[in-house]
């Protein structure tokens, strides 16, 4: 496919030469860039699965297929609503959110490849060739996502409304793409303006976390909310808070151009916004944002080499985690494990990218299950009757997944080789380090999160759920320890993220997920079938859970070098 794309792009050789571009060099750069795209692991979609194959050959083909599948999923909105305005608004909403996310994570790799400065800049390549190569690369990249994503929609629209409708749809897609490019450029520029170049990638990481939460939430809650919307009002035009949203403008543009006469004035205004604002945005990008963006990027390379005086990030000494560590750990080895897990988890981009979203997923799942249901009850009604249910138990046990995710990601790091220090230092019982690390996860991430969840629970169900929350906390603590004991016989940040999980470990993983499910179900049974004595039973089980947690804790703390080795052989 790359050859075809390259031939297509290089068909305009004469044009490039006229612009002062060296066509041969342009082709060489593009060819290498496209090859590298094919071999690079993808960001957005491929992140959570362990990489099955070590050698990545056709990463871009994956992107194309994923985009195509997503394009099919968006067709849902056309079946949901017969009103084209509503359907198109929701369609373009999903389309633009998804496109922005894909681009924002990929652009970091495409644009900020600092290696270019060392590899291409010392060679006899002129600035125009480099600029043209970058522009064409972005364009190719964009087409590989946009074209397959719009294809299902295009087929549907052309069957339903014929050629004129399909052409208008293409116009809308082009405008939507422009808006996305503008949004991303603006985001990048704001980030570059408020921060130093060194922190840029960190902040992009935060943006990626926020976006992946957004995607997850949109996918689970979006259709339900959309259905609710359609249920409540016949058209999206009845919701004024949608007026500033570009997807509505584009939908309005389609509607107005399709049926120019007899629309309400508001629709004409929205359509005008849809036609005028996207090109205006791009003009702003070209005129104001792009030049300073390139200048900043130029600085990116020279700043990274250490030639320019760069201010290192200084860290407060005797930070607060030390006193926390002192309170919750026993002995020096254990607090070492606590400290290292606390510090590295806060600074490893990969860990944050994988774990932080899972905390948000807990809430998304919860609301998904609260609002799910085919019955035609509106979301407001469900919310009002929530306090009569036992849904808080669901909330408590869902939150254990966040804890499990934190603990299972604790072992992975790109810099896993640095873990040799554990093996050369005189650690007698490695279990103490592991226990310390698990405690750090509990104190740093889970307890603050659980406090938040508790506030939510108190707000909805009142103070009566206190015993349940206490039992839940103890239970999640021992889930975490059990999880650690069964799967985390490895030092924190000591394994490469690319290892393959064996089938035995997969079954183990299922068991670990089943435990919170079963315990949660038992908890629910007590509450729903024995209302008279349930509070007493809950307290009784809390005591039993504390004992259980204590036993697992003691055993985990004693994990020896031999056990560690045995576990790593199974890994």
């Amino acid at each position, binding site marked *: 496919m790359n050859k075809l794309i390259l031939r297509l792009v290089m068909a305009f050789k004469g044009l490039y030469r006229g612009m002062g571009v060296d066509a041969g060099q342009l082709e060489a750069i593009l060819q290498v860039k496209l090859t*590298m795209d094919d071999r690079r692991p993808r960001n957005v979609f491929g992140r959570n699965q362990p990489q099955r194959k070590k050698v990545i050959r056709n990463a871009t083909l994956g992107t194309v297929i994923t985009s195509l599948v997503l394009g099919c999923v968006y067709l849902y909105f056309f079946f949901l609503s017969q009103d084209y305005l509503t359907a198109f608004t929701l369609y373009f909403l999903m389309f633009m959110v998804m496109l922005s996310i894909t681009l924002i994570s990929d652009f970091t790799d495409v644009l900020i490849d600092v290696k270019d400065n060392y*590899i291409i800049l*010392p060679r006899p390549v002129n600035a125009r060739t480099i600029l043209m190569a970058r522009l064409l690369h972005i364009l190719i990249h964009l087409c590989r996502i946009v074209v397959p994503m719009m294809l299902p929609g295009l087929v549907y629209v052309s069957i339903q409304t014929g050629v004129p409708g399909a052409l208008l749809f293409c116009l809308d897609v082009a405008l939507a793409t422009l808006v996305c490019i503008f949004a991303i450029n603006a985001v990048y520029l704001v980030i570059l303006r408020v921060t130093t170049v060194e922190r840029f990638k960190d902040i992009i990481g935060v943006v990626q976390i926020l976006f992946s939460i957004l995607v997850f939430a949109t996918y689970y809650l979006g259709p339900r909310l959309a259905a609710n919307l359609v249920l409540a009002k016949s058209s999206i035009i009845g919701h004024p808070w949608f007026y500033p949203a570009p997807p509505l403008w584009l939908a309005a543009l389609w509607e107005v151009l399709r049926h120019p006469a007899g629309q309400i004035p508001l629709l004409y205004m929205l359509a005008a916004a849809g036609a005028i604002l996207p090109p205006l945005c791009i003009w702003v990008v070209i005129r104001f944002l792009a030049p300073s963006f390139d200048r900043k990027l130029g600085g990116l390379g020279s700043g990274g080499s250490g030639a*320019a005086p760069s201010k290192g990030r200084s860290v407060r000494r005797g930070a607060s985690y030390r006193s926390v560590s002192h309170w919750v750990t026993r002995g020096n080895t254990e607090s070492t494990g606590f400290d290292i897990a606390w510090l590295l988890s806060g600074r490893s981009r990969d860990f944050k990218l994988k774990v932080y979203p899972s905390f948000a997923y807990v809430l998304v799942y919860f609301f998904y299950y609260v609002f799910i249901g085919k019955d035609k009850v509106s979301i407001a009604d469900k919310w009002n009757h929530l306090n009569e249910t036992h849904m808080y138990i669901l909330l408590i046990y869902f939150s254990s997944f966040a804890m499990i995710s934190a603990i299972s990601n604790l072992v992975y790091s790109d810099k896993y080789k640095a873990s040799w220090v554990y093996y050369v230092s005189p650690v007698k019982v490695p279990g103490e380090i592991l226990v310390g690390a698990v405690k750090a996860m509990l104190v740093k991430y889970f307890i603050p999160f659980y406090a938040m969840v508790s506030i939510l629970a108190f707000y909805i169900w009142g103070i009566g759920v206190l015993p349940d929350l206490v039992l839940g906390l103890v239970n999640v603590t021992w889930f975490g320890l059990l999880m650690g004991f069964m799967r985390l016989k490895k030092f924190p940040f000591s394994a490469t993220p690319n290892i393959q999980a064996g089938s035995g470990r997969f079954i183990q993983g299922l068991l670990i997920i089943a435990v919170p499910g079963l315990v949660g179900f038992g908890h629910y049974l007590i509450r729903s079938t024995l209302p008279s004595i349930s509070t007493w039973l809950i307290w009784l089980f809390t005591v039993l859970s504390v004992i259980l947690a204590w036993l697992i804790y003691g055993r985990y703390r004693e994990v020896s070098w031999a056990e560690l080795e045995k576990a790593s052989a199974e890994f």
Partner: protein
Amino acid sequence: MTPTVSIQHLFKSYGDKAVLNDISLDVFPGQIIGYIGPNGAGKSTTVKILTGLIPDFEGSVTINGLDLREHPLEIKRMIGYIPENAEIYDVLTPMEYLQFIGRLYDLSADTVRERAEQMLAAFGLKDVLDQRMDTFSKGMKQKVLITSGLLHNPSLIVLDEPLSGLDANAVIVMKEIMSRLAREGKTLFYCSHMMDVVEKVSDRIMLINRGRIIADGAFEELRKNSGDSLEKIFAQLTGETNLEGEADKFVNAFES
């Protein structure tokens, strides 16, 4: 004879911090210049200006009689640069990478293949020509990097710590390559912290400190004035005469 490199009154500063402070030097064909100095002295900055990575500077730089500002592309064509931090597109294979570099210099694919095969075979990399470099060791990548810098037969070769990561045999090969290239009339600009290698390889040594050249001459000349080894000369000229004292401080830390 026109100097290969002629730098006159070169200044460069980042913000209010002066990195290069009035550097002037002439280098002639066939010379190997050992360019040395403490960390942060301005070595890398000089190299980056020479290779066109830093376009804004004060003063004049001409290479083979051409002004660096006016003829950047022609000059880049004459220079072979082997950078210090081994930046390389490591998802490519050595052959793919070298083909790419070759095309940037308008070399034909056949020429590149011939040269690359021969050069990498000399480094013992013949069997891995078509394997992706992401599994390569640091030394193997360095060998590909060296090859990529010499592929187009440059007349001025700028090497920044080129021996890092190389095994002992490759170091011997590389030293021999450097002196052969100099004998053919090429100019080598060699930056390194390995004083013993610089001492043996270069026929002219330049020591810079805080953005100024503080010593310039053959090793024999420098030896007359200062110590007997380049290490000692280096220490003396950069003002660090009490290095044993520093070592004392380090070791004494155990006692406090």
